[in-house]
Each structure stands twice: as C-alpha cells, then as structure tokens.
C-alpha cells in the first residue's frame, strides 16, 4: 500500500471513530445528558472530519461538514437551543455525513437531494439562532473551505500602498461579541506568503481589537531563523460579527498556525485571564521545537498553495492543540490517530489533552487471532505436560508439581489477558442501532424511542461482529411488526411513541441480549392461520402459546400482508435463528398480547475458551460448561421418583427437578442409566429452569480450549463444541440447554418451543 492510500485509510478509520463520537454526543444531547463538553466533542468530531476531508479534496464532504459545523457552532456558543427538533435535524445530518464518508471511501453516490435539503435545514437553524443578533450576513454557512481566498499572498502585492494609518481607521465598530484570539503563526504560514499583519488587519476590520504581542520566543540574533516564526498574538476583539465570521478571517491560515478563538461572555473572568496566556505559552513552547526547523518551502514559489499539499507532505509530528477545536485533526500526519484521540478526550476548556488520554494502538485482528490460537495450544500442551508428568509417577507434592501449578496459573493469566484484548463492549453494535431505528421508524411511519442498556457489556470481538446482522433484523421486526401505528397505539391507550428496548447483560457466563417492544404482541391466531395455510404445521395441531410464538422462526414464515421495503420477503426470523445458532447461541420469544414481545438471544461470551467440568458419560468424556452448573450430588434411591413412561424426577432438598440421562440423550446408550450409580449435576438453563443431568462420574474441572465442531465436522444437536484433552483425545462440550430441552419435548414435531416447555 502506498503512503497516500495508507493515510487515506487512517483518515477513514478516524472518520468512523469521529462519527461514532458524533452520534453518541448527539444522542446524549437528545436525552438531556449533555454538558458543554459533549457539545464540544460533537463539534470537534465534525470539524475533524471536515479538516481531513479537505486534505483529500473531498469537496462534497467538506461542504456538508462545513455547514453542519457552522450549525453546531451556534449550538456550542449557546445561541441555538438543543431542542428536539434541532437535535433531530442534527441526527439526520450525522447520518448524511456518515453516508458521505462511505461514499468518499467506497465510491457511489450520495443522496444529493436529501443532503441539499439538510443543508437548507441546517442553514435555517443558523438563521434562527442569529435571529436576535445585530446584522449578521451569514454568507459563512454556504461558503465552505473550497471558496476562493479571502486575501491574497500578502507583502508581495504591488498594489499595496502603505499609508500612515491611525489604527482607528482600520478598526471596525465594536460590538457585543467579545472574543479572545490567540494566534501563533508557524513558519509554514510565512512560507506560503501569508503575512501575519495581513491577517491581523482583517481582524481589525471586524471590530475593536486590542493586540498584544508575545515576543518571549524570539531568540538571539545568532540563533534566529530569518524565516522562522516566533511571535504569538493575543487579540481581544469586540465585534458585532458572529464567531464564524471571525473564524473566516483565519480560514486560510488555520492549518498553518496555532489558533484559538474563544468567546468571552460578560466581563473578562479573572481565571480565564490568567489561564489562557499560560496555556498559549506552553503550547507555543511545545511547538517551538519542530518549528525551529527551517522550512523547506521558499517564499517566492509559495504563491497561493492550498493547505492541502503542505499537509500531506508534512512529516513532522504536530502536537495537537486540545483547545476548543479551532484546528482540525490532521489525518495526514503520522501522529494523527493519537492526537485525535487526545483531542477527543480533551476537556475542551483548554486543558492540553495530549498526555491525558488513554493510549491505544491499532492491531490487525489477524495477529490477535493468531496469538489466541497459540495461547490455546499452549494451554492444551500445558495440561498434557502435567498429565504426562503425573502418569510418569511424579509425586503430587514434589517441586515439579508446584512448578506445574504455577505454570498453569500463568498460562491461565496469559489466556485471560489475550482474551481481554479481543473483548469489546457491545457498544460498537448498539451504536448503529439509533440510526437504524430512525430509518425504520421513518419508513414505517411510526414513532419509536430506542432505549439501550448495558452497552458496556463486553463480549468477544468475533461474537460482536456476528451479532450485528441478527440484531438489526430483530429490531427491524420489532418496529415493523411489533409496534402499532401511532393511531392504533392511542386507541389502545398507550403513548403515541413506541419503545424498543435493547439490553445486554452477562448471565451465567453468556451474554444475553433482549430486544423488547411495547407493541401489540404476537397475534397468535393469525400466526397459526398463516402457518397452517403455508403448510408449516398440520391444521389440527394443538399448539401451546409458546409453540405458536415459535412458529415465526420457521423457514418461509411471514406475517406481512404486503411486501414492504422493510420486511415481508420471507427471509425472516429463521435466518436470525440460524445465524444465532451458528454462534452457539439461542433465541427465544416471550410475548404478551397487547403488552409487547421480548426476544431474548443468548450467546457465548467467547468462542475460544471455557471452564468446564470433565465428566464420564458411558465410555465417553464430556465437558459440561461450569457456568451452567450449580451443584453436584449423588442421588439416593429414595430421592428419585419416576412418572409417566420413563421420565424421572430427582428430589433436591424440597424441590423436584427433571433428571436428564445424558448418555441416553446423546445416544451413547439406549438403556436407562441407574440413577443411584451415577452423579447428578444440577444445572440452570438460561431461562432459570433447573434440571439435573445424570452422568456416570466426574473426572475433574479444567479450562478447555473450544474447537468448533461446526467448522471441522458439522452441527450436532446437544453438543456445543469440542475440545482436545490432555491425553490428546477429543471430548465433546455439552450444550446444556439443548440437552435439557430435548429431553422434555421428544416426540414434538418441531423443536423450537423446547425451552419453554422445560419451564
């Protein structure tokens, strides 16, 4: 990959992060959880995208981002209320921005009409915000960074006739808006023939300005670089113009200087007064190092070079200024990712955020996967090694055995740490949902509020990746089929706005995701009719409520009367169910007529390791996931009761629970195992139902590395996966829920309702 493509890729990765930040921020604003930092973060996100896009000449993106940014700026400065309407427009703009980024990356065309509409709406908001302002022509909104230069190349201009001017001639009229501008040109700015005094003159033209110049950085004559930049200007500007008008002045030098523009409200506050020059000085000092380098560009050739070219060639890392984002992140510079991170994390009030943010690196997923594979092998070999040692007659109390224990602990720690690298909060999936909900709600004409919970629940990356599709599908379903139309809701005495709740949680060593709506619930009568019509169930079938609900998971089932753009194409819940099963997960429904439905999917936390109890079943070794086990016991003859056919119950203290003969379920034997000769393992299924698994004996407890059975062999009902034991043999890992459920509903003609039947 050549350097430019690499930079481009970094830019798009950055964009994805910024967009996520943007959306999260806007949602926080929508929910009223926002503070000024949130608004700043949102602003920065858009600004950074704009800055980066400018470097790659992505004009559409720049233009849109610019308008968006202008509007956000109004919000940031408090002139625009974050009312519901405003936030809605902003959210849609964020979606549009995301689309534009995608288009810029992958090609294709954006919805120009929608974007134009949004631009108008955004501009409308700006105008609205300016309503009370003194005359403020807002050419700014439309302009964009791609407009022609505001001023020419400075001192080389022959038309420039210096006149003895009283500065008051230069000054515009003062106004209510007060800004403190700290402006520190970099040598690059001069190299492009931009003159600081020209910029300053433009500032004077805006209103009453008081400039003070910090000369403390100017070195000794012997050390000076004649074309260097050593001066920092602090301008106190009082103007009738709005902030973006002020920013416009700096638009063409903003890439080549340190700039902070800050609105001062009321009388200058003592704290800020003291703070700012200090920070400016610190920043200036940080900056002084790279800038001392002589600039390669010659003054005369630097006619009016776009900031773009210089950006892309700029090799030296630039400490990012975490100020209120006058400066966009610089995706072109190698240091950009870290800098942008810092930028995003900076508190926006002026703390130099460079050092404070958490350090992250980007690693190829492939490398991590390889590491995980290797660690898996390490664990297997460590187990093998210690087993061999004991087989060779090593005393359990010997030093070597102690060493093995330590080694085991160490391997385990390594494994945990490696797994932690891949664990990610489900937030990354949840983040995409608001947009989905908005779009589906728009199309279906329903009002929907999305509530997410537990978005920090961590789960393995592979699980997350494969979670997105089924989740998307289920949410679409919840809105399209679950929620009623607003008028129907009102008629039913519910709020007009439907609620879709998505919650993630850890439960018994798995991640459980619940998607619930407060809609009408499943229309069981209709579901059954359709299923019978489509020949999915016999007409005379007598189905329980759960069984009826589970019909929607059958292939080819669709309740939609008409095919909409959302659903009704017959690819439905069966696909969802299959993809979840492929992950080693399960999905179930609970529906209450008139109250809504809840879809629950449960997935393994990781697809790599498992704590298991090693048990003997017949002459096989089977692993029971430890997370499902509550206790083990040896049933006495008096505690085992049989009823109907060969079903058995075991009494544990004062409750009875079904006794599941594992060997029989898995087909290892056809005889009923003697209940008193084996061990009963009490397990709890995900729905909370308890059963006892009857096995022949317990061998031990161990961490096993999961090897996918599906990938290497095929899916086996009742078996979740396989593993390799210390002696090299393959052992199967029991899918407890499936085994328990199968034992209940044998003879049923479809097995989707099995879980509920166990209750």
């Amino acid at each position, binding site marked *: 990959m050549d350097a430019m493509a690499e930079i481009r890729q970094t830019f798009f990765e950055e964009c994805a992060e910024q967009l996520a930040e943007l959306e999260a921020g806007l949602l926080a604003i929508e929910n009223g959880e926002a503070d000024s930092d949130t608004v700043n973060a949102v602003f920065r996100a858009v600004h950074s995208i704009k800055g980066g896009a400018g470097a790659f000449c992505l004009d559409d993106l720049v233009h849109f981002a610019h308008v968006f940014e202008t509007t956000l700026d109004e919000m940031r400065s408090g002139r625009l209320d974050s009312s519901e309407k405003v936030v809605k427009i902003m959210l849609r703009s964020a979606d549009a921005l995301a689309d534009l980024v995608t288009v810029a990356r992958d090609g294709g065309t954006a919805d120009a009409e929608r974007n134009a509409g949004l631009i108008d709406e955004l501009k409308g908001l700006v105008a609205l915000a300016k309503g009370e302002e003194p005359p403020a022509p807002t050419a700014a909104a439309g302009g964009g960074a791609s407009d022609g230069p505001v001023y020419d190349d400075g001192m080389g201009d022959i038309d420039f006739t210096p006149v003895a001017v009283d500065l008051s001639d230069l000054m515009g009229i003062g106004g209510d808006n007060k800004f403190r501008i700290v402006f520190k040109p970099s040598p690059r700015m001069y190299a492009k023939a931009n003159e600081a005094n020209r910029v300053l003159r433009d500032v004077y033209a805006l209103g009453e300005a008081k400039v003070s110049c910090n000369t403390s950085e100017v070195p000794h004559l012997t050390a000076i670089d004649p074309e260097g930049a050593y*001066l920092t200007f602090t*301008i106190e500007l009082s103007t009738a113009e709005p902030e973006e008008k002020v920013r416009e002045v700096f638009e063409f030098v903003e890439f080549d200087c340190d700039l902070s523009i800050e609105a001062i409200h009321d009388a200058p506050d003592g704290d800020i007064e003291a703070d700012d020059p200090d920070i400016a000085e610190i920043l200036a000092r940080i900056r002084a190092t790279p800038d001392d380098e002589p600039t390669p560009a010659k*003054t005369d050739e630097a006619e009016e070079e776009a900031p773009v070219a210089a950006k892309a060639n700029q090799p030296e890392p630039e400490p990012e200024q975490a100020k209120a984002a006058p400066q966009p992140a610089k995706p072109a510079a190698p240091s950009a990712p870290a800098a942008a991170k810092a930028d995003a994390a900076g508190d926006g009030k002026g703390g130099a955020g460079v050092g404070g943010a958490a350090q992250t690196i980007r690693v190829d997923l492939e490398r991590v996967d390889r590491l995980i594979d290797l660690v898996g092998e390490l664990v297997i070999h460590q187990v093998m090694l210690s087993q061999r040692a004991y087989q060779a007659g090593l005393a359990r109390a010997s030093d070597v055995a102690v060493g093995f224990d330590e080694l085991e602990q160490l391997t385990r720690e390594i494994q945990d740490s490696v797994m932690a690298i891949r664990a990610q909060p489900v937030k990354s999936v949840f983040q995409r949902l608001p947009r989905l909900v908005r779009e589906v709600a728009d199309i279906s004409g329903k009002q929907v509020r999305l509530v997410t919970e537990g978005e920090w629940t961590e789960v393995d990356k592979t699980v997350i990746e494969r979670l997105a599709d089924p989740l998307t599908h289920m949410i679409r379903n919840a809105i399209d089929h679950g929620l009623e139309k607003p008028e129907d809701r009102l008629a039913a005495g519910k709020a007009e706005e439907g609620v879709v709740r998505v919650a993630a949680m850890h439960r018994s060593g798995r991640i459980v995701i619940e998607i619930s709506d407060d809609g009408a619930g499943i229309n069981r009568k209709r579901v059954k009719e359709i299923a019978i019509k489509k020949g999915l169930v016999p007409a005379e079938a007598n189905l329980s409520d759960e069984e009826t609900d589970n019909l929607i998971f059958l292939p080819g089932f669709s309740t939609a009367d008409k095919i909409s753009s959302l659903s009704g194409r017959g690819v439905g819940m069966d696909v969802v169910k299959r993809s979840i099963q492929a992950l080693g997960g399960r999905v179930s429904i609970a529906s209450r007529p008139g109250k809504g439905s809840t879809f629950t999917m449960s997935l393994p936390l990781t697809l790599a390791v498992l704590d298991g109890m090693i048990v003997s079943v017949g002459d096989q070794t089977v692993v029971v996931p430890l997370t499902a086990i509550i206790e083990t016991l040896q049933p006495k003859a008096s505690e085992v009761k049989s009823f109907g056919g060969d079903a058995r119950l075991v009494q544990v203290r004062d409750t009875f629970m079904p006794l599941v003969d594992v060997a029989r379920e898995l087909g290892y034997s056809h005889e009923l195992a003697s209940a008193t000769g084996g061990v009963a393992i009490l397990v709890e299924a995900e729905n909370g139902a308890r059963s006892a698994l009857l096995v022949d004996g317990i061998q031990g407890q161990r961490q096993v590395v999961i090897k996918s059975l599906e990938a290497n062999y095929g899916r086996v009902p009742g078996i979740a996966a396989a593993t390799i034991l210390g002696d090299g043999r393959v052992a199967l890992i029991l899918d407890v829920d499936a085994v328990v459920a199968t034992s209940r509903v044998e003879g049923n003609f479809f097995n989707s309702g099995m879980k509920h039947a166990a209750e």
Partner: protein
Amino acid sequence: MARKSTKTSNAEGAVYALPEVLDLKAATPLAEKLMSLRGQNIVLDASKVERLGTQCVQILIAAAATWKDEMAAFSIAEPSDSFTSGLQVLGLTPQAILEKEVAQ
C-alpha cells in the same frame, strides 16, 4: 528614543538605513546585515521603511535583544509612519522592540 541616552559612551556607532521594503524576502538579508554589524553601537534609520513584514520585525526584536546582551547601544531613528503603524498592527511599538529582554 529613550535608549539613545542609556549608553553614556553614546557617540558615533554605525548608522544603518533600513531598506524601504522589509517583507518576507528581505528577512534573510536583513538578518545577515545585522549580524555583520554586531559588536558596535548601532542606529537603525527607519525613516524610509514603507513596508514592514512580521519576520523582519522578529529579526529586529532579536537584534535589539542581542545588542542589549552585548552591552552595545541599539536604537531606531526616525521611524517612518509605515514603520510605526506596521508595528502597531502587530501590537508592538518601537519602544517595545528596544525593550525586548534577552532571550536564551
């Protein structure tokens, strides 16, 4: 120009007439010229200056500090209006330049 009197030796010293145009391109020659004049009292004649660029101002500040450091007199004579207003735009005065403290 208060500085003139600070050095009691006062007297002659070189007079260097600043060029009319002190723009970006003039920065390097100006720095070289001033370097060559080091070690003696100097009076900069700013009467002809018509255009004053920021980088040249930087050099003048550096020079003032250097002269001060070397205990030699440094002064600016007869600043033209352009010179003064050029400084003023940057938030400076001829006085401010002369009073520049020694930079490390």
